[in-house]
């Protein structure tokens, strides 16, 4: 498929070069002498398990938040059209395969990098979502707490994936950078229903991507343990 084409790889390299230029965050402790960070060393398996746990939880909480939001704010007739803007998920530009067969053909490296990309692309939108939810008059505490929790966990997931990349792929640390996509401009005061639907779409898209992350990581784990069954 398009993975195999060299052109695509070149495009990838071009896209990724800003990452290489900026500084990296030291996360792995045991390999750096005199490091100021104090994280304990952890085995790769355990780290992967923990990362998967994170991803599972994030997916579950995002699913709960989505349902909560739907119950509270989305009027019933609009619920069927919740995916009206689904095609316009902010991460749809990312070259992430969506079918099982495609995913199975991905290498470990691409799996990890895809996950990292997804995570990073959602950090800022979630922060934005927090601010908009605060503007709602009757957003429940539960919903706000859930979204807050998710954005925090996402950050730690990002760090975990970065460490995993370093351990598994022996690559240098990729810097954190903010998403270049500016799809979330808040121009003036949108109409209530519009903003509701926009936020709802945001939540659904995030839920979808969380599921993707979880699946990728699980496939990765399967490959670690038993490569014959999983491929």
């Amino acid at each position: 498929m398009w993975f195999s084409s060299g052109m695509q790889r070149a495009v990838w390299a071009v896209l990724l070069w800003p990452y290489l230029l900026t500084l990296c965050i030291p996360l792995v402790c045991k390999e750096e002498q005199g490091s100021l960070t104090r994280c304990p060393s952890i085995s790769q398996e355990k780290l992967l398990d923990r990362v998967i746990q994170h991803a599972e939880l994030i997916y579950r909480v995002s699913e709960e938040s989505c349902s909560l939001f739907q119950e509270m704010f989305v009027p019933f007739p609009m619920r069927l059209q919740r995916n009206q803007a689904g095609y316009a998920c902010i991460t749809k530009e990312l070259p992430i395969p969506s079918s099982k067969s495609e995913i199975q053909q991905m290498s470990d490296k691409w799996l990890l990098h895809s996950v990292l990309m997804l995570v990073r692309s959602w950090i800022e939108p979630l922060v934005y979502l927090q601010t908009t939810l605060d503007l709602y008059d009757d957003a429940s505490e539960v919903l706000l707490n859930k979204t807050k929790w998710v954005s925090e966990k996402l950050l730690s997931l990002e760090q975990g994936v970065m460490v995993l990349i370093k351990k598994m792929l022996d690559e240098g640390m990729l810097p954190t950078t903010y998403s270049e996509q500016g799809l979330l401009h808040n121009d003036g005061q949108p109409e209530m229903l519009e903003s509701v639907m926009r936020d709802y779409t945001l939540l659904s898209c995030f839920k979808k991507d969380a599921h993707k992350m979880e699946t990728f990581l699980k496939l990765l784990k399967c490959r670690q343990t038993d490569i014959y069954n999983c491929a």
Partner: protein
Amino acid sequence: MALKFSYIGSKWICLLFYLILFTAMVPPRHPHLTGCVSTNLETFRCRWNVDYFQNLSQPGDLRLFYINNKPPHAPPKEWSECPHYSTDRPNECFFNENHTTVWAYYSVQLRSKDLAILYDENRFNVEDIVQPDPPVGLNWTLLNMSLTGAYYDIMLSWKPPRSADVEMGWMTLQYEIQYRSVTSELWEVVDLVKNTQRSIYGLQTNVNHEVRVRCKMHGGKEFGEFSNSVFVHISSKVSTFPVVALFIFGSLCLVAILMLVVISQQEKLMVILLPPVPGPKIRGIDPEILKKGKLRELTSILGAPPELRPELYNNDIEEQNDTLTDLDTDWLMDHSLSSNCSPLSVGFRDDDSGRASCCDPDLPSELEVSPFHPLTPTQILSKEPSCPAASEQSTLVQGSTGVEPLFVAPSREALYTQVSGVRSSGNVLLSPEVDKTTNEDSEKDMTEKEKEKKAFQLLVMNADDGGYTSELNAGNMSPRSSEGDMSERDMSDHSKAGEDLSSSPSPSPYYKSDTSSMSALAPVPVYTMVEGVDTQNSLLLTPNSTLAPQMINQKSVPTPDGYLAPDLLSSVTL
């Protein structure tokens, strides 16, 4: 009432209305999509229903179009038709792996053959429509059984559906177990588990149980179908009824035994649980005085020098038994008064429970008695052979050895008075009580009776007769007591002759005392102690001056446990 009827009536009317509406007046529903379902997140299928439009049930009459990741308003040429209309069942479209994109949203439309009529449409994400196949391989094993054999636990295990790719981690499933006894209609639901085994506790024996499992995707909303039920049955022979009866019987027996024990040992238990409280008791003092507050009498008794009150400070805590009182009365009392060995006073008996042990025998104070009265038992016996021998004696003289023994019979309730003189006949004159305060007449009656019995007499015998002097301390001195009066009147005549007696020796025994003691006769009786009898059969009395100040604040005197110390009592005197 009227409201109730109207409410019920309106309900029925509404029901009827809807029934009519839906059956007769509403036109038959056009074909519609019943739902799209995926079982393994890799494929899915969409189904629709043709209710009344039977002419459209032919294959190809209805067509399904879908569009993927694009807005549904796209022109029809971008829509694709169903990749595969199912052959095994009608009105179904199957999307295989190639046409399934997991995290993409789908729009599906049901149209007529000529695409002109749009009957129904649906939008979804594939991961949202997952309903996994039921688990397979349901199996149970016995974990353990209860002691009574009435309940048991099982471990249920199963396998995930084959269609779901759990090994790879493509799908994470959660399982829900439901079980019930065959007779009941209600299913017991066990919480979701991620493992493929779960234990069920507390199933009853001899009852047929039905167990089934279903699963859903982790984070998904809808459950799949239930698996085939598996039946669990364990029979046991132990029936529960005798166990319960046995327990009841055993507990009843235990209760009965306890009751028997309590009843038989009631007294002992009462002593243990409610130990007897020592009542107010001072040896040598009538408890009636203590109870009824005759403090003046009390102080007159307790104000005596401690040596005169041997009974109060007797180390021997044991009660005086009746034999003792018998002995006392027998040789202490004048024969004219009573010659039989009647007890001195019933009232003197100490009825309160201020004793260390009810069952302890009265110990004879042999040690005290022996150096002084080797002959007294025989003397007593010789004097009054009809009376029982003394078993207990207490000495008045404690410090004076070598002196002719004095014998003083102890008597708890004995009151003290002062010797005012000694007559030639040998009788000792005693001064009467100055103040008598009685609160109630009944007390007087009681004390009257007691006084009658408590005759006293101080016998001073000639030394030739054996040489003992006895000092009798009896009960209340009252001018009204007949016996006491007799001797008292005799003695009071010579009260003024006390002075003379003190200095003049006479063949008849007399007592010596300091002038200070004599002078203290009139207003406040001063007591002294007879130390002994000299060779001339005269009484040797201890000097009073040293004793007087010590009378009241006599703290060095050993007090028996539990008894009120006289010095404490004297502090409450009027």
